[in-house]
């Protein structure tokens, strides 16, 4: 384990920033280009995870455990969010037999 840590210590924090922002951007693009509600949901998860990674990196580099505790809370929240979100999607699918978000336009009227 010690070997691992000493090897990772040489990676600058900046690279974690860049990696997380790339993943976050991919998540954003995913939300924009897909119409399948589940895939959009998954892209949101991807964005959440990018933030998680960044928080963990910050916490590890600054030596402050608060960041990792935050990640823990985000994971708990993500679990709750997925449960409710998927339940909503299942309801939508039951009513419209599709998960196309364009159908949800009807919510406007």
């Amino acid at each position, binding site marked *: 384990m010690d070997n691992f840590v000493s090897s990772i210590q040489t990676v600058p924090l900046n690279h974690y920033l860049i990696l997380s922002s790339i993943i976050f*951007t991919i998540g954003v693009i995913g939300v924009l280009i897909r119409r399948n509600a589940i895939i959009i949901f998954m892209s949101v998860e991807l964005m959440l995870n990018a933030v998680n*990674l960044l928080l963990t990196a910050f916490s590890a580099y600054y030596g402050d455990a608060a960041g990792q505790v935050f990640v823990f809370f985000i994971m708990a929240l993500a679990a709750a969010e997925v449960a409710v979100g998927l339940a909503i999607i299942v309801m939508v699918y039951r009513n419209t037999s599709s998960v196309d978000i364009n159908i949800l336009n009807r919510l406007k009227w």
Partner: protein
Amino acid sequence: MILFYLVSLLTITFSLLVIFTKNPIYSVLYLIATFFTFTIHYVLLNAQFLAVVNFIVYMGAIMVLFLFVLMLMNLNKETEPMKSNLIKIIAVIAGGSLLVTLIGSFKQLDALGISTINKPEIGLVENLGKVLFSDFLLPFEVSSILLLSAMVGAVLLAKKDKTDNG
């Protein structure tokens, strides 16, 4: 060092595959792979607890739910709704500019100049637990209420309405 870049490359590849694969089931599987690489990142950061929690919560529970729902809905490539190419291109351009903005703003952070892990033992269960149950005790309790309400909400939503025949 090299391991980090290798894993990062895998992370980016898999997450790109998530959003560009047509078959939703493949998307879910690629997302699982992405989360697996995230787990490796956490291990590399010596955040062992988070690594395992990520493993259990994301890969073991959340993604199984996704897979479950997708398999039961029987969505596949043929029924997958896709947006037009124009929207796709615009979305990619928008995302790209977001990325440029983000990275541009991070340039400012260089001044902070921290490039070594200070206390590597911070991610161990013991230390994390102490912080969690002392400084963050109230949020911890509140999150349990959140989980409970989410559980009730999910059950209520997914339950078939008995009154009408839908």
